[in-house]
C-alpha cells in the first residue's frame, strides 16, 4: 500500500538530482588534481567544490534516500497510510531550503570549510544554518517513523513488527542520537563564532563532538542498504530470508555498537586519552559481528533461492542464480565492495595500523569504496525496485539497468583501488594540487590517472541512472501490484519483546555513549585555556 507516492518520489528525485551535481564535482576534483588536468592556479576553487561535494554526498543525499525509503517502508510494510503527511512535507522542504541555504555561501567561496567543518576554520553563518535545517528536517522523519510504528502497534497489539519497519525505525533512532554530536558542536561552538559572538573556539572539543557523529552516520547511510539486503533481495530473486530473528539481532547490534566508537577518528588527536581510544577501538571491532551475521544470513538466503531453482552441489548453486536480475547483480557487486572496503576498515580501526594511513588518500579511497560503492549501489537497486510502484509505469529495460550497475562497479574499482595504493605510498588527502613533476611523487602519476578515468566511468554510470529513472516516468503505464518484502523461512507468530521493541537497545546505546564520551567531553569543556582563535574563511 503506497499512498503518498508523490512524497516519496519528491525525496528520491531531490536526492538523485543533488547526487548528480555532486558526482560531477567529484569527477572534476579527481581530474583537476591528476596529471591529466592542468592546475587551476587557485586552490580556493578546489575547496569550494570539495565542500559542496562532501556536504551533499554526506548530509543531503543519503539522508533523503533513507527518508524516502523509510516512508515507503512505513506505508507498505505496515499496510497503513502514513500518519503526519503534512509534517513529512515540512521536513522535506526544510531539507530543500537548508541545502540551498548551505550551497550559496559555498559557491561564493564564503564557506570552504569542508563538510567536517574543520574548526578553527570558520565560514559563513548561513552554511552552518543550512546544515542545521537539513538535520532538523530529518528529525521530523525520525519522529514520524516512531509515531507510525506506535499507531500500528495500537492496532496490532503483540504482533511482530515487520522486519523492514523494525530495521527502519532502528536506523532512525540511530540517526537521531548520532546527529546530536554534530548538533552540539554547531550550536555550542561553531555557530556562536560564525555569528560573531565569540572569537575563539575549542577545536579539540569540537573534534570530539564531531567524532560522535562521524562514525555512526556511516551506519545510518548503511541502513537502507542493509534493509534492502534482508527484505528486498531475497524476494526479488525468489528466495526467503534465512532467519528473521538473526536479522533483528543484526540491526539492534548496530544500535549498540555503531554509536559509541567514533573516537577511532581521533586516534591522532592529542586531546583524547589513550585509554578511551583503546575502548573505542575495541568496540569498533565488535561491528564485525553484525556485519558477518548479515553476510552469513544473506548468503544463506541467496542459497535458498538457488536451491529452489534446482541448484545443486557445494558451489554449483551459484551458477543457477538469476544473474540477469539487476537485484542479484547489485547484491553481488555490493558484497564484493563491502568485502574489500571492510578489510580496509579493519586497518583503519586498529590504533597502530591507522597511523600509517591516517589522513592519506587511503582514507578517501576507503570510504568511496564502501559508501560510494557498496552502499550507493544498493540505493540504485532500491530505486529500481520501487520505481514501478511509485510511478505506476514499467521499468523494463533490464539491459540498460545492468549496464548501469556494471559501470558503477567497474568505475568504483578502477577509481578506488589505485586511490588506496597512493595512500599507502603516503599521498595526503584534501590537497588541491600535486606536483607530479617532482621525482618524489612522479611514480604515483599513473595510479592517479587511473582513478581519474574511473571517476569518469562513475559519472557516466550516474548519468545513465538518472536517464533510466527519467525514462521510467514516461514509460507505458502498468499496474505493479502491491509492494512486498521478503518473508522468512520460518515466519514465527511471536517475537520476543526485546526483538520486537527498541527501548532496551536505545537505552544501551545512550548508556555506552555516556561511558565512552562523558569523561573526555567533560574535561575538555571544563579545562581552561584550550581555545584557539578562529580562522575566518574568505575574510580578513
Amino acid at each position: 500500500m503506497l499512498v503518498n507516492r508523490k512524497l516519496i518520489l519528491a525525496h528520491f528525485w531531490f536526492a538523485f538530482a543533488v547526487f548528480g551535481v555532486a558526482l560531477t564535482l567529484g569527477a572534476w576534483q579527481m581530474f583537476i588534481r591528476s596529471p591529466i588536468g592542468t592546475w587551476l592556479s587557485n586552490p580556493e576553487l578546489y575547496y569550494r567544490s570539495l565542500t559542496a561535494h562532501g556536504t551533499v554526498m554526506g548530509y543531503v543525499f543519503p539522508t533523503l534516500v533513507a527518508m524516502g525509503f523509510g516512508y515507503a517502508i512505513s506505508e507498505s510494510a505496515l499496510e497503513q497510510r502514513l500518519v503526519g503527511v503534512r509534517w513529512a512535507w515540512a521536513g522535506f522542504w526544510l531539507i530543500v531550503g537548508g541545502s540551498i541555504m548551505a550551497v550559496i555561501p559555498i559557491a561564493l567561496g564564503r564557506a570552504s570549510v569542508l563538510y567536517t567543518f574543520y574548526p578553527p576554520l570558520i565560514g559563513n553563518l548561513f552554511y552552518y544554518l543550512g546544515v542545521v535545517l537539513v538535520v532538523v528536517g530529518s528529525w521530523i522523519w525520525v519522529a514520524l517513523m516512531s509515531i507510525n510504528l506506535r499507531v500500528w502497534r495500537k492496532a496490532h497489539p503483540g504482533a511482530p513488527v515487520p522486519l523492514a519497519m523494525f530495521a527502519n525505525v532502528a536506523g532512525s533512532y540511530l540517526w537521531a542520537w548520532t546527529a546530536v554530536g554534530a548538533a552540539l558542536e554547531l550550536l555550542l561552538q561553531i555557530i556562536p563564532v560564525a555569528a560573531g559572538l565569540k572569537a575563539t573556539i575549542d577545536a579539540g572539543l569540537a573534534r570530539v563532538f564531531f567524532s560522535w557523529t562521524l562514525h555512526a552516520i556511516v551506519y545510518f547511510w548503511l541502513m537502507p542498504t542493509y534493509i534492502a539486503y534482508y527484505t528486498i533481495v531475497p524476494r526479488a530473486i525468489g528466495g526467503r530470508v534465512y532467519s528473521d530473528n538473526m536479522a533483528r539481532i543484526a540491526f539492534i547490534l548496530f544500535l549498540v555498537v555503531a554509536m559509541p566508537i567514533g573516537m577511532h577518528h581521533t586516534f591522532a588527536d592529542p586531546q583524547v586519552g589513550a585509554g578511551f581510544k583503546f575502548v573505542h577501538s575495541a568496540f569498533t571491532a565488535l561491528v564485525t559481528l553484525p556485519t558477518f551475521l548479515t553476510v552469513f544470513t544473506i548468503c544463506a538466503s541467496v542459497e535458498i533461492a538457488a536451491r529452489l531453482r534446482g541448484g545443486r552441489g557445494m558451489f554449483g548453486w551459484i551458477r543457477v542464480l538469476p544473474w540477469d536480475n539487476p537485484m542479484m547483480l547489485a547484491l553481488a557487486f555490493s558484497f564484493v565492495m563491502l568485502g574489500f572496503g571492510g578489510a580496509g576498515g579493519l586497518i583503519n580501526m586498529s590504533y597502530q595500523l591507522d597511523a600509517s594511513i591516517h589522513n592519506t588518500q587511503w582514507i578517501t579511497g576507503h570510504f568511496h569504496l564502501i559508501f560510494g560503492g557498496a552502499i550507493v549501489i544498493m540505493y540504485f537497486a532500491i530505486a529500481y525496485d520501487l520505481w514501478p510502484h511509485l510511478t505506476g509505469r514499467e521499468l523494463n529495460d533490464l539491459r540498460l539497468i545492468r549496464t548501469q550497475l556494471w559501470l558503477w562497479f567497474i568505475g568504483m574499482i578502477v577509481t578506488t583501488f589505485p586511490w588506496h595504493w597512493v595512500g599507502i605510498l603516503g599521498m595526503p588527502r584534501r590537497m588541491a594540487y600535486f606536483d607530479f613533476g617532482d621525482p618524489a611523487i612522479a611514480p604515483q602519476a599513473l595510479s592517479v590517472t587511473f582513478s581519474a578515468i574511473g571517476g569518469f566511468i562513475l559519472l557516466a554510470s550516474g548519468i545513465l541512472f538518472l536517464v533510466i529513472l527519467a525514462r521510467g516516468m514516461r514509460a507505458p503505464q502498468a499496474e505493479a501490484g502491491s509492494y512486498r518484502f521478503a518473508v522468512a523461512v520460518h515466519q514465527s507468530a511471536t517475537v520476543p519483546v526485546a526483538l520486537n521493541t527498541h527501548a532496551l537497545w536505545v537505552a544501551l546505546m545512550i548508556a555506552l555513549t555516556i561511558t565512552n564520551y562523558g569523561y573526555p567531553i567533560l574535561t575538555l569543556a571544563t579545562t581552561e585555556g584550550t581555545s584557539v582563535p578562529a580562522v575566518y574563511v574568505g575574510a580578513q
Partner: protein
Amino acid sequence: MSARDLFTFRNPHFTRGVGITAAILIVTAIVGFIVLPFAQPWVQFANVWDAICSAAGVPQRLAGVAAPEQAKRLSEVVLTSHTLSRPSQEAIGRGATLAQRCAICHGPTGLSRADSPNLAGQYAAVIYKELHDFRSGARTNAVMSPFAVNLTDQEIADLSDYYAFLPRLPAYHPTPQLPKPSIVIYGAPMRGIAPCGSCHGSLDNKTGSPWLEGQSEAYLKAQLQAFASGERRNDISQQMRNIARAMTPQEIEQAAAYYASQPPDIVKAVD
C-alpha cells in the same frame, strides 16, 4: 509487551544484553586503562591511579621541567576580532598626524621612494603586528626600530588604521609585469610550501600576512633571506621561516622580482 516485561532481570534478553555489554566495557576498560599503560616500558607510573589518569587524558602539568629559554624575543602580539574593528575618523586623523614622522622613509602617501616598504593600503593587522614586534624587539632593524620603541598601544592602533585607510597606489618601481613563477603559483607541495597567494592576499589572506605587490625587489629579497637565515624570527609558529628555508636562492630572486613588478590593486580587499 510493556516496559515492565522488558526491563527486568526475568527477561533473559535484558539480562544477557546488559550483562554482555557491561562485561565488554569492563574488560576493555581494564585493558585500556591499566594493562596497556603498564605495558609501555618507556613510561613510568607511580601507581595504578596514576596510570588510569594518564590513559584517561587527565590534564597534568609536568613537574620539574622548565620551559626552554628563548635566546631571542618572539612575537607576543594578540589580535582579536575587536582589536581593529571599525576605525573611527578620529583614529585615522590621529594616525595621519603621527605618520608625519614616518614620511621621510615610507613616503608622504605611504609609498616609499627608497627601499623601505610601502604601507599605503596595507592590511591594518599587519601594520599593527609589525609595529608591536619592532617595539618589543621581536623584529629588529637599525633604521626602523628606533621609531617604534616609544609608540603607545593606542598610537600603534591609530597608525594601523591610518595606513590601512590610504588608497593602494602603483609603486615607484615600474618594471614590466613579469609572468608568475612556479613557486608563486604552485608553491612546492613536496617541500611544504603553499602557493604564496594563499596567505598573502591574491588568493586568500591569512591574518597577519602582508600583501607584497609593488614592494621593492631589494626589500622583498632581503626579508626572504632574513627569514631563511633565521635573522628575522617574528613570524608566528615559523610560518614564513619554514617556507623561506625551503626555497632555493633562485626561487627567492624570482618571487621578489615577480611581486615587485605587480600593481597592488589585484590584492583582495579587506572585508
